[in-house]
């Protein structure tokens, strides 16, 4: 009995103790949220127009932002990883800047660029009448701005780790550089690409600062779930908690489902 117990070693408490504190950092706030939840009338609270509108908008804009991040971020990551051009380090730093910048600053910068009197926004509105801020596409733009860096960083790292000999082998078989990327490189880095897309989506779903600065807080048009939580915290705390629970559930369901299927390789 004692011998058998001796074979199974206990993990060292020097690791277990800080790990437990680390886990508590994540667990305690969610437990608190569950305790605080207005369970009796939860159903009515989360089926109000405000919440339904915000949920619909949040899902739509976060998925669009993740899609845009993939469509634009993969070529950008490829450029950063594979093409040696002047200013590459600077561009790489600029691309990752939204990860450390306060999102409010990002939202303000977006306004100066695409607002009515912005560098690009002014001429574009004059020419086409299209104005990005305070529209659903403004939300998508703000989301993409904060989310795409996660995809670019993940995919660029994966591209740097790819064995170039496989790409060269594909070229000797007649594949052009674009075909090599599509048929060999991207399939080889598929797990990282998926992880990057999920990270970008998750970041977009939770986005608050850039969205409220750049797109405003119009119910049904630019008010996403995080914005709805913020507004209700001022007036109606129970509804704020209820919306938070919706946000937590949606995120958890997606992250757990994708983690099992995509993030771990058999």
């Amino acid at each position, binding site marked *: 009995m004692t011998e058998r117990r001796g074979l199974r070693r206990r993990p060292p408490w020097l690791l277990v103790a800080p790990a437990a504190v680390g886990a508590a950092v994540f667990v305690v706030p969610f437990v608190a949220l569950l305790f605080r939840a207005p369970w009796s009338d939860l159903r009515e609270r989360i089926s109000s127009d405000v919440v339904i509108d915000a949920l619909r908008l949040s899902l739509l804009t976060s998925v669009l932002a993740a899609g845009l991040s993939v469509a634009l971020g993969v070529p950008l990551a490829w450029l950063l990883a594979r093409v040696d051009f002047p200013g590459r380090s600077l561009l790489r730093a600029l691309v990752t800047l939204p990860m450390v910048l306060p999102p409010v600053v990002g939202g303000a910068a977006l306004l100066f660029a695409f607002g009515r009197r912005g560098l690009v926004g002014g001429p574009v509105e004059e020419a086409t009448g299209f104005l990005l801020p305070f529209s659903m596409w403004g939300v998508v733009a703000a989301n993409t701005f904060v989310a795409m860096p996660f995809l670019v960083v993940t995919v660029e790292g994966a591209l740097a780790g790819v064995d170039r000999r496989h790409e*060269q082998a594909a070229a*000797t*078989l007649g594949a052009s550089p674009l075909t090599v990327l599509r048929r060999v490189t991207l399939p*080889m880095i598929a797990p990282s690409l998926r992880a990057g897309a999920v990270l970008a989506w998750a970041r977009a779903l939770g986005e608050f600062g850039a969205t409220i600065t750049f797109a405003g807080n119009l119910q049904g048009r630019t008010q996403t779930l995080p914005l709805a939580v913020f507004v209700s915290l001022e007036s109606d705390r129970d509804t704020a908690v209820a919306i938070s629970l919706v946000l937590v559930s949606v995120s958890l369901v997606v992250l757990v489902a994708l983690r099992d299927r995509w993030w771990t390789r058999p």
Partner: protein
Amino acid sequence: MSLDAHLVVRREGFALDVDLSIPAGTTAALLGPNGAGKSTTVDALAGIVPIDGGRIVLGSEVLDEPASGVVVQCERRRVGVVFQRLLLFDHLDVLDNVAFGPSVTGLRRGAARAVARRWIELLDLDDLTDRRPSELSGGQAQRVALARALATEPELLLLDEPLASIAVATRTLLRHTLSDHLRAHDGPRLLLTHDPTGPPSRGPPRSSAAGRRRPTPPRWPAPTCSAPTPPEGSCASTATTWSS
């Protein structure tokens, strides 16, 4: 269709200078120790790295000639390569590995697979079509790599250390089957090896680059020129050819 090449590739602390002349339907062997520039030779002929001097002429087409500025991109060269590490695509099964070349050069998926099946049959890989490369033995993977290279119907075939990844015990057997399979290719073929025991037991005496003795044609082409690395680190090799 023959290969005439003079390759000059310079790297820091390394210079490669090789003359190759291989008539159609024959196999030349290039022998050199590791680090002598065999893989650089493959890369230069395949178009993965440019040459710094000399020229590569395949048939009537100039593939690379720095002096005149002519260079044909890798994907446009009709050069098939069996790489030392084989480099099969792990995300594709055997059938789609072999079909890769035909499909990226314009055939639809079905037609490309039909081409692939012909080569798979020719190289006795019928039972393995839906296996992944990770599920193959060394010898099977090597045949798949050969089928993949041949399926593009290359004019020049390069084999880089084709037996390096194979257990010694199965090499002799494989040498024979491989040389049979090589007959499916009627252009010039270049075999690169560091293995001085490469030829079968009845192989020719090892000779220097200058000695162009013609022994009875071996089933597996024997390397005839060894290229000892001179002190300054440059390598000059000459390949000798036999018809097989």
